[in-house]
């Protein structure tokens, strides 16, 4: 048996292939549906984002940056210069495509990842199964996921999201699990001793206390899905990655650089945004007294409502002007 095994190559590649084929055939209806709906959704979003006047968009991002960073100028200035640069390089619609791709894949990752994290924090057995899978997912080079993605969904933006999700999922799952497991034993006992149900414990104790850790995981997930964008362009996902890819293929250093820099600008803005939002959220729960808390919440609500109004007004103005 043993010599036999050494002599004969195990047909692992064949197995994986036939499993993938089987999945593709059996679930082709489902995959087709996801492909159509997903494509439609993302086209709509990109179209909407590109339809908004870039200057209005930049203004919103810059003002938002000013307020969420605690009225400091750093992030606002950076966003202003960075986004104007992207616009100047005529990469605006690529930027919006990339942003859509990152946003959707991060959302999907969070929607899948947080519940998975919760599950593995509640069950040692689930954790024992999920952890090695996550390890596997993270060590596998990202572009390997492109292959099944293409098999399932063909080419385009949906397989891009699919592979980004697989690639970017692990930190959210891990950090959710960790955050919940780190809730102090005595607090768990307190919640239990008063007769909390599972979901009461989850929503009143676990998630609020794990919030910061979970947010750190989500931040990492967003960054990972951004890094997957370039690779997704190999299977036809639109956006800045495509520019980088074609620059690489044609050895155009300049174009590659400009596209790459635009990606970096997007990455930094998203990263700082999520970090600041995270900080604000935890500051809210630690606010010294109710007055300060209320005031803070009012200001933030004001900013939010303000930006929505700006978007709507600009949309109307644009529609009227034709």
């Amino acid at each position, binding site marked *: 048996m043993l010599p036999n095994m050494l002599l004969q190559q195990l047909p692992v590649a064949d197995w994986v292939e036939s499993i993938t084929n089987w999945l593709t055939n059996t679930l082709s209806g489902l995959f087709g549906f996801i492909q159509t709906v997903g494509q439609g959704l993302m086209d709509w979003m990109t179209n909407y984002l590109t339809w908004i006047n870039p200057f209005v968009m930049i203004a919103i991002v810059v003002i938002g940056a000013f307020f969420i960073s605690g009225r400091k100028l750093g992030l606002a200035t950076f966003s202003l210069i960075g986004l104007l640069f992207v616009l100047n390089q005529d990469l605006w619609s690529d930027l919006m495509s990339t942003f859509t791709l990152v946003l959707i894949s991060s959302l999907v990752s969070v929607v899948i990842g947080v519940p998975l994290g919760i599950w593995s924090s509640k069950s040692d057995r689930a954790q024992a199964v999920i952890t090695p899978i996550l390890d596997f997912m993270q060590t596998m080079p990202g572009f390997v996921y492109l292959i099944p993605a293409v098999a399932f969904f063909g080419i385009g933006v949906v397989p891009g999201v699919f592979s980004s999700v697989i690639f970017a999922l692990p930190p959210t799952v891990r950090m959710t699990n960790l955050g919940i497991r780190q809730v102090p034993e*005595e607090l768990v006992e307190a919640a239990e001793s008063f007769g909390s149900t599972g979901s*009461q414990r989850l929503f*009143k104790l676990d998630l609020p206390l794990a919030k910061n850790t979970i947010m750190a995981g989500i931040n990492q997930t967003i960054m990972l899905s951004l890094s997957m964008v370039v690779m997704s362009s190999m299977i036809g996902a639109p956006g800045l990655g495509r520019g980088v890819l074609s620059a690489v293929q044609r050895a155009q250093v300049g174009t590659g650089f400009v596209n790459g820099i635009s990606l970096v600008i997007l990455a930094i803005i998203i990263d700082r945004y999520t970090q600041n939002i995270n900080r604000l959220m935890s500051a809210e729960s630690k606010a010294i007294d109710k007055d300060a808390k209320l005031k803070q919440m009012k200001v933030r609500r004001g900013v939010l409502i303000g930006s929505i109004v700006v978007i709507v007004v600009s949309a109307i103005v644009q529609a009227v002007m034709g």
Partner: protein
Amino acid sequence: MPVVEVKNLTKVFGRKTKAALEMVKDKKSKNEILRKTGSTVGVYDASFKVEKGEIFVIMGLSGSGKSTLIRLINRLIEPTDGSVMVDGDDIAKVDKDKLREIRRTKMSMVFQNFGLFPNRTILENTAYGLEIRGVEKEERNKRAGEALKNLHLYDFKDQLPSQLSGGMQQRVGLARALANDPEVLLMDEAFSALDPLIRKEMQDELLELQQKLQKTIIFITHDLNEALRLGDRITIMRDGQIQQIGTGEEILTTPANDYVKTFVQDVDYSRVLTAQNIMEPASLLNIQAEGPNIALRRMKHDKISMLLAVDRERKLQGVITAEAARDAKNTGKDLVDYLDTSIPTIAKDTTVNDIFNIIYDAKTPVAVTENGKVLGVVIRGSVIEALADEDAESIDTNDIVDVQPEKGDK
């Protein structure tokens, strides 16, 4: 009829329960059992009844199984064997829904490190039990507010736990448990993390509340003095097994075995040790120069609730409590008007035995003075420790030693 009846309650941590139990029956030591079976006997064959309105104290050294026992009573830990009857239900056997209902309505727990939810305000913490029972917000805030008023905490209701001192946090813990209006209160070393003065205050407060509320309280401590002060009856545990159950008097006068005897015996070092051996530096307030704000800040900094008031010569004038300082601050009157002059004083060579008699019922610590000048203070914890400490021989009676109060066994 007893409110809580524990029968043959046993908990073995680990896999080889049967083997471990066989070995306990053969009177093998805990260590040996752990080595042979890999299992720890947390509690073995505990039986007792607690009557309505009683404070039942469970006492023992660290690791003797106190926390395990109290957690078997509300089944935070699953029992290996035995039963816990509360109002006709066997907690060890009821299903999940019934257990939850019992926890929600019949018993509440107070924790050693307070177990307050850091993200919730004092009021939200206090209302937690009511909230998860589905009591309407207005109603539960009203009831939680009442509980907070009972413990003089209402003014802090919108603060977060981290903004309160340890003593106040534990009062919140108590308020949270009482807001539920349970029949049974389970208190696991509830006062052990507090410094001795606050601890005594809390003991007094608990006794006062108990007179009003007549709850059935199971109280855990590793402090003999606390047990004697609070307990209507006391259980002494060792290695998971109950050694004796009785009133404080019975335990002191007729110990059931040698272990209990050594546990409770009054060591005669009390005659040798004097005030200067066990006194601690006093937190002073110069009443001629310093006002209520300084007083409050100093108390907060030193984590104590009263200061010795002295004049410029360091001569003792009385005591300023936190309440007094707060009142003075609010009314704007002179602190001197709030001076409590009833503080007992002793000389530095008063023996521990004599101090004990003075301090036992004193509300304040005792000041050690010489020609009217403050040398230090003696707090109850140190006296008790000096009286109970088996290793008191090691104390060099010529030196002033800093006897740290016990800070809990975790």
